[in-house]
C-alpha cells in the first residue's frame, strides 16, 4: 500500500501546513529529546514508545485495538525478525510459556538467530540496489558480488552498531589499520551498473556511476533526493547544485577495486603457493623479461598518448576502449582497474597490479608490435602462465572501493552535462547541514553522517526500521525527508526514537526489540469498522496493518512450511529453477539451474541477473535492481495467482507438504489431525470449524476427481509415501497447494 498512502498523506499534510521556509524545515534541525507524554489509559503502554502512540490516539478520541492472539503474534514476530514461519515446536513452547516475559524471550531468541541477518539484510540491499550482474547490454555476471551481501548478513547478526556499519560501508578502506573485512563494507557502492557494450564512452559511464553513488548515498543516509540537484539547484530543498557536486566529489575520488578476501580455509596454503607461483612465473618470463618490459612500456605509452589524442588511430582508440570495457568482465572486477594501473607510475604498482596488467598486456597487447609478439612466441608464454595459474589455489575476491591515487578535480557539471565543466569545487557537506570536520575524504564524510549533529541519519534510519515492521514509516515518504516529503505522523515519537537510537549507541537490535515488544506492535490487525473508517490508512496506529509478504518471503515460507527449505546461511548466489523463457528476455544471459539442495535456498540468495530478474521474485514486486529503493510496492496481480498455483517450485512445495502430512498418521481422526498440522505449519494456528468443513468437502471432491483420473493423481502426487494411497496423496498435495495460495499465507497478519 505504501506509495498510494503516502501520496494521500502528502496531499493532506501539504494542504494542512504549507512547507516551511527551507532553512527552518523540521528535518534539518536536530531532533530534540521529547518527554513521553502523559496518557489517560496508563495500563496499555508497555514502554515509552506506546505513550506517544496512545497520546495521539487519545487526542483524537480513539482507543488502541486489543492484543493479537498469541499465535498471530508469534507468527508476526517470526516473519518480522527471521522471515520464516514459526516451527511447530516454537509454537508449542510459546503457548506453554505462561511467564510474563514470554514475548521478550522469544524476541531475544529470534534476534540471536542467524536467520535474523538474512531477513534484515534485504531492505538494506534494496537501498544499495544489489545485483549479481553488470546491467546494461552485456549484463555480465559478478560472481563475487555476494561477498558484500554476506558482509551485511554477518554485520547484522553480529549486532554491528549502525554508526560502524555506516563508516565501514562509506569508507572502510580509509580506516586506520583497516582490515579486509572493513574494506569489504565499501562493496555497498559496487552495486552500480557497468556498461561493457562496445563503443560505450568510458568517462560517460564512470560519471554515471558517480552520479548513482551520490544519489544512493543521499537517499540511504540522509533521506534526501540529491539527484534533483545534478542539473540545477534543487527546486524544493535547500541543496544547491554546488552542494551536490561537493558530495559528488567524495565519490569522484573513489575507484573500484577488487581485493583478495580469502574465505575461511582459503588462505591456508595460499601464501606458500603464491610464493612458489611468483618464482615460477619469474622463471618463465626471465628469458624475455627485459624485452617484455620494453614492449609493455611502449604499449602503455601508446595508450596514454591515445587517451590524450583520441580519433587519430582507430586501432589504438579501440585498444584503449577495450582495456576499459573488458577488464575483469564476468569476474565482477572494477571496469577501470586496468586503466588505473596504466595511470599508476611503474614503480608505485603493487606486485599484484604488475602481474595483472602484464597478464592483460601479454594477451591483448600485440598491436604494439605484432611481428615481435610472434617471434617471442608470446602465445606459448601465456599458455605456460595459464598452467601455472591453474595450480594456484584460488582466493575469493571481493568488490570494494579505494581512494584514487591522484585526486580528480571535481567541477560543477553545467546542466548536468559531464562534458561541460563549470566551477571547480572541493568535497564537502551541503551548506544547510552541520559542518564537516576532517580531511575531506570519504572517512570524514562517513563520520559526518553519523555525527551527533546530523539531524537526518538517525531519523531516516529509524523510520525505515519502523516501516519494515509496521508497513509504513512515521514519515511515509521514506525516500524523502525534504520539504516536499510527507510530514511525520508522530513527530515527537520519531524524534524520541531517533535520539533513543543514538543514546543506545546505534544498536539496531535493541531498537527493533523495543518496537516489537511494544503494545503498539502487539495489536490485532482486525479493527472495528469504526476504526477502519476513521483511519483507513492506519496512520494513527490504532491497529496493526496487515502486509503482504515480500517476494523473497513468499518463497521462503512455502519452502519452510513444506520442509524443503535449505537453511544454509551465506555463500554464492544460486539459480533456482525457472522457465527458460525468462532468461531469454536478456541479451545473452544464461541460467545454469542449481542442483540438489541449492534449489531450495532462501530467496535472498537467488542470483539477480539485472536484465532478466528471477520471475517469481519480479512477479511479487522485487524492486528494480538498477536504482535505489526505499520502500517496496505490494501489488496484487493475476500473475501472482498463476505463480502460486502453477509454478513447479510451488507445486513441489505442495507435494512435499502433502507427503509430510500423510506420513503423520496420528490418532483416530487422521484428516482432522493432518488439517491441524497443515494449518499450524502454514499459518501457525488450527483451522476454524468452517474452514475445517470446507477442507473436508474439498478433499471429498478432489478424491472423487482423482479416482476418475488415476493417471493425473499419479502425476501430481509426487514421490509416493509408503503405505499411502496415491489418490489420497494427490488430493493432499492439492490441499497443501490451497494452503500455499491463501491470502493469509502470504500475509503478515
Amino acid at each position: 500500500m505504501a506509495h498510494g498512502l503516502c501520496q494521500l498523506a502528502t496531499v493532506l499534510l501539504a494542504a494542512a501546513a504549507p512547507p516551511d521556509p527551507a532553512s527552518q524545515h523540521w528535518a534539518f534541525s536536530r531532533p530534540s529529546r521529547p518527554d513521553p507524554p502523559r496518557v489517560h489509559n496508563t495500563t496499555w503502554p508497555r514502554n515509552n514508545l506506546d505513550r506517544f502512540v496512545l497520546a495521539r490516539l487519545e487526542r483524537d478520541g480513539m482507543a488502541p485495538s486489543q492484543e493479537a492472539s498469541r499465535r498471530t503474534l508469534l507468527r508476526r514476530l517470526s516473519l518480522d525478525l527471521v522471515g520464516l514461519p514459526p516451527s511447530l515446536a516454537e509454537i508449542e513452547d510459546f503457548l506453554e510459556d505462561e511467564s510474563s516475559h514470554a514475548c521478550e524471550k522469544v524476541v531475544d531468541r529470534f534476534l540471536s538467530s542467524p536467520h535474523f541477518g538474512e531477513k534484515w539484510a534485504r531492505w538494506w540491499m534494496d537501498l544499495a540496489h544489489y545485483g549479481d550482474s553488470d546491467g546494461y547490454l552485456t549484463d555480465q555476471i559478478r560472481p563475487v558480488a555476494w561477498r558484500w551481501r554476506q558482509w551485511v548478513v554477518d554485520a547484522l547478526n553480529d549486532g554491528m552498531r549502525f554508526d560502524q556499519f555506516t563508516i565501514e560501508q562509506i569508507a572502510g578502506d580509509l580506516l586506520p589499520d583497516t582490515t579486509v573485512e572493513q574494506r569489504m563494507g565499501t562493496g555497498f557502492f559496487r552495486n552500480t551498473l557497468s556498461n561493457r557494450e562496445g563503443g560505450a564512452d568510458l568517462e560517460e559511464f564512470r560519471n554515471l556511476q558517480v552520479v548513482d553513488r551520490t544519489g544512493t548515498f543521499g537517499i540511504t543516509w540522509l533521506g534526501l533526493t540529491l539527484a534533483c540537484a545534478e542539473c540545477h539547484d534543487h527546486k524544493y530543498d535547500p541543496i544547491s547544485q554546488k552542494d551536490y557536486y561537493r558530495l559528488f566529489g567524495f565519490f569522484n575520488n573513489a575507484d573500484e577495486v577488487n581485493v583478495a578476501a580469502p574465505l575461511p580455509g582459503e588462505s591456508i596454503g595460499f601464501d606458500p603457493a603464491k610464493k612458489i607461483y611468483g618464482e615460477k612465473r619469474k622463471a618463465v618470463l626471465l628469458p624475455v623479461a627485459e624485452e617484455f618490459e620494453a614492449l609493455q612500456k611502449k604499449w602503455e605509452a601508446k595508450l596514454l598518448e591515445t587517451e590524450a589524442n583520441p580519433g587519430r588511430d582507430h586501432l589504438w582508440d579501440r585498444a584503449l576502449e577495450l582495456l576499459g570495457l573488458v577488464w575483469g568482465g564476468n569476474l565482477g572486477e572494477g571496469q577501470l582497474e586496468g586503466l588505473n594501473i596504466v595511470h599508476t607510475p611503474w614503480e608505485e604498482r603493487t606486485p599484484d597490479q604488475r602481474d595483472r596488467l602484464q597478464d592483460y598486456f601479454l594477451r591483448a597487447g600485440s598491436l604494439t608490435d605484432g611481428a615481435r609478439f610472434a617471434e617471442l612466441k608470446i602465445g606459448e608464454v601465456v599458455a605456460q602462465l595459464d598452467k601455472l595459474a591453474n595450480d594456484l589455489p584460488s582466493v575469493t575476491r571481493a568488490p570494494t572501493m579505494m581512494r584514487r591515487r591522484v585526486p580528480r578535480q571535481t567541477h560543477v557539471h553545467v546542466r548536468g552535462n559531464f562534458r561541460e565543466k563549470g566551477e571547480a569545487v572541493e568535497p564537502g557537506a551541503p551548506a544547510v547541514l552541520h559542518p564537516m570536520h576532517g580531511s575531506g575524504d570519504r572517512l570524514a564524510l562517513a563520520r559526518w553522517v553519523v555525527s551527533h549533529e546530523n539531524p537526518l541519519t538517525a531519523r531516516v534510519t529509524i523510520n525505515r526500521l519502523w516501516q519494515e515492521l509496521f508497513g509504513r514509516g512515521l514519515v511515509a515518504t521514506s525516500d524523502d525527508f525534504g520539504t516536499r516529503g510527507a510530514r511525520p505522523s508522530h513527530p515527537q515519537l520519531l524524534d524520541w526514537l531517533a535520539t533513543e537510537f543514538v543514546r543506545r549507541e546505534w544498536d539496531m537490535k535493541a531498537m527493533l526489540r523495543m518496537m516489537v515488544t511494544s503494545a503498539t506492535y502487539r495489536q490485532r490487525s482486525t479493527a472495528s469498522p469504526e476504526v477502519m473508517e476513521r483511519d483507513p490508512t492506519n496512520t494513527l496506529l490504532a491497529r496493526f496493518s496487515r502486509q503482504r509478504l515480500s517476494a523473497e518471503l513468499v518463497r521462503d515460507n512455502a519452502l519452510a512450511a513444506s520442509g524443503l527449505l535449505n537453511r544454509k546461511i551465506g555463500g554464492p548466489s544460486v539459480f533456482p529453477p525457472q522457465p527458460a523463457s525468462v532468461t531469454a528476455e536478456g541479451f545473452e544471459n544464461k541460467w545454469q539451474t542449481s542442483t540438489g539442495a541449492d534449489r531450495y535456498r532462501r530467496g535472498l540468495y537467488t542470483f539477480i541477473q539485472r536484465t532478466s530478474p528471477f520471475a517469481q521474485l519480479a512477479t511479487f514486486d522485487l524492486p528494480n535492481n538498477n536504482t535505489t529503493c526505499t520502500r517496496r510496492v505490494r501489488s496484487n496481480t493475476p500473475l501472482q495467482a498463476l505463480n502460486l498455483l502453477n509454478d513447479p517450485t510451488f507445486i513441489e512445495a505442495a507435494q512435499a507438504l502433502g507427503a509430510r502430512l500423510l506420513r503423520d498418521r496420528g490418532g483416530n481422526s487422521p484428516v482432522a489431525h493432518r488439517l491441524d498440522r497443515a494449518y499450524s505449519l502454514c499459518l501457525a494456528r488450527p483451522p476454524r470449524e468452517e474452514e475445517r468443513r470446507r477442507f473436508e468437502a474439498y478433499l471429498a471432491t478432489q478424491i472423487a476427481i482423482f479416482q476418475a483420473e488415476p493417471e493425473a493423481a499419479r502425476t501430481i502426487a509426487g514421490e509416493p509415501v509408503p503405505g499411502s494411497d496415491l489418490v489420497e496423496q494427490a488430493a493432499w498435495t492439492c490441499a497443501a497447494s490451497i494452503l500455499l495460495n491463501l491470502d493469509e499465507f502470504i500475509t503478515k497478519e
Partner: protein
Amino acid sequence: MTGEQRELQYQPRRGFLQQTGGGLGAIALMHLLRGDDCRASDRGTGPPHFKPRARNVIFLFMAGAPSQLDLMDPKPEMKKWHGQPVPASMLKNQEDALIRGSARVFASPRRFQRYGRSGIEFSDYVPSLGTVADDLCVIRSMHTDVANHTPGQLLMNSGMPTPGHPSAGSWITYGLGSENRNLPGFVVLTSSSGKGIDAGAANWSNGFLPSEYRGVTFRAQGDPVLHLTSPNGVSAATQRARLDAVRDLNHMHLDRVGDPAIASRIASYEMAFRMQRSAPALLDFSRESKSTLAMYGLDHDTTRPFGTNCLLARRMVERGVRFVQLFHSTWDDHSELDKNLKTNCDMTDRPAAALIRDLKERGLLDETLVIWGGEFGRTPMNEVRRGNTKGKEGRDHHRFAFSMWLAGGGIKGGQVVGQTDELGYHIERDPIHVHDLQATVLHCLGLDHKHLTWRHRGRDFRLTDVGGEVIRKVLL
C-alpha cells in the same frame, strides 16, 4: 469505466463491502486493475484527459537500430561521397563516442522506389511497406540523446536513458487501464534473428509504478504467459476445485478481517482463471482465414515468428489490450549490414504491412496507433572498426537523425515529415526528439503528457521527463 463504477471507487471501504455484499464482481476487479496502491494517486485508471483518437497502441520496436539510410531515407547524393571522409563541417561540435572522424561515407547499395499516391520512397528491402505507403507517416527527422543500445532503448521506451523508470506501456495502462477483463493491459511479444534485446526486460518495466503495469510477455510457443498452464496432473476439474476452495477460504478470512486487499486477492484468482481460459482462444488461429494467415506470412518459416506476433497483436487489440509491443532483435549491423539487414527485413516487412492492411480492413486502424522504429539510427559512414572489405561494411550508431513511421489512430498517413541533409547526417527540417514522439503518442490516446505523473523521490515523474512537444504535423 462507467460513471457508476467511478462513483463507487470513492465509497468508503465499509460501504464498498456492504454494497457488494461479498459478491465481488466488477468492483473488486476494478480495485485489482487499479491496484491497492494507487487509489490516492492523481490518475490511476480513469478516463482520458480529452477526446482520444486512438484506443490502443501497437509498437513494433526494432531493437538494435535499423539502418534508415538503407530503408526509408534515400540519399542519392551519397554516391558522390562514397569512400570519402565526411565533410569536416558536419562533424563540428560532435562529442559522440561512436562518431569517428576517420570514418568514410558508405553509400547505400539499395535501390529506392516511390509508392502509392503519396509517392513515399522505400528501398527494395521493404517492398511490402510500400504497398501500404498511403497509410504511413514516415518521420525522417527523429533524434535522440544517447548512442548506446541500453540507454537508447530505455529512452525510447521509458523516456529516461537510465533503468528504473516505467515504460510507455506502463504509463498508458496506468493512465487508461485495460478494457479486457481476461487479459493484461500491456503485452510484450518478442522475436529475433539471433541475439536478444539489449536492455532486456527493463524495456517493459513498470519502474516505480505498481507491478500490475509491467508488460506481460506472451510467448508464441510454450506457456504464453508464465505459469499459465496448470501443471501436469491438474485437470480443469482439479483446477476449478482448487480455485473454489481458495476463493471460499479467502472469503471466510475476508469476512473476519474486512481488508479489501483480500477482496482484490480473490478477484486476482478469478482473473487468473479467466486468463487460463481465454489465452488459448487468443492463440488459436484456426478461425483465421487462409488468406489472412498467408498475408501475415504464417505459411513461411522466415516470416512466421514476426508474423505470428503481428497477428497476435491484432487479435489482442480486438480484445481491448491497450498496449501491445513487439520487440524484434537485433538490427545492430556493425558489419555485413547489407546481408543482415535483408535477413531482418525478410522476417518483418511482409507481416508489418499485413498488420496495417488487416487493421484497416477490419476498421481497427482508426483506433489503433501503430509505431515502427528502433532506438536510434545508423551512420552514413562505414564503421571504421571493421575495415572496408566489400560486403563486410557496416554502420555504427547514429543518434543525430533516424527514421520511424507511424500509422492509424489519429495519424495523417501518406506523408513524410522531416528532412535530413544530403548524407543523412543531420536534420535539416522538423527535428523530432524521442520525448516529442512520446508526447504525441499520449496525445493520440487523449492523455496530456504533462499531466500523466507519479510522485517518486520527491518529484512528479512523467514519461517525457522535462521535455516533449506534441508533433502537430503528424496528426490528422
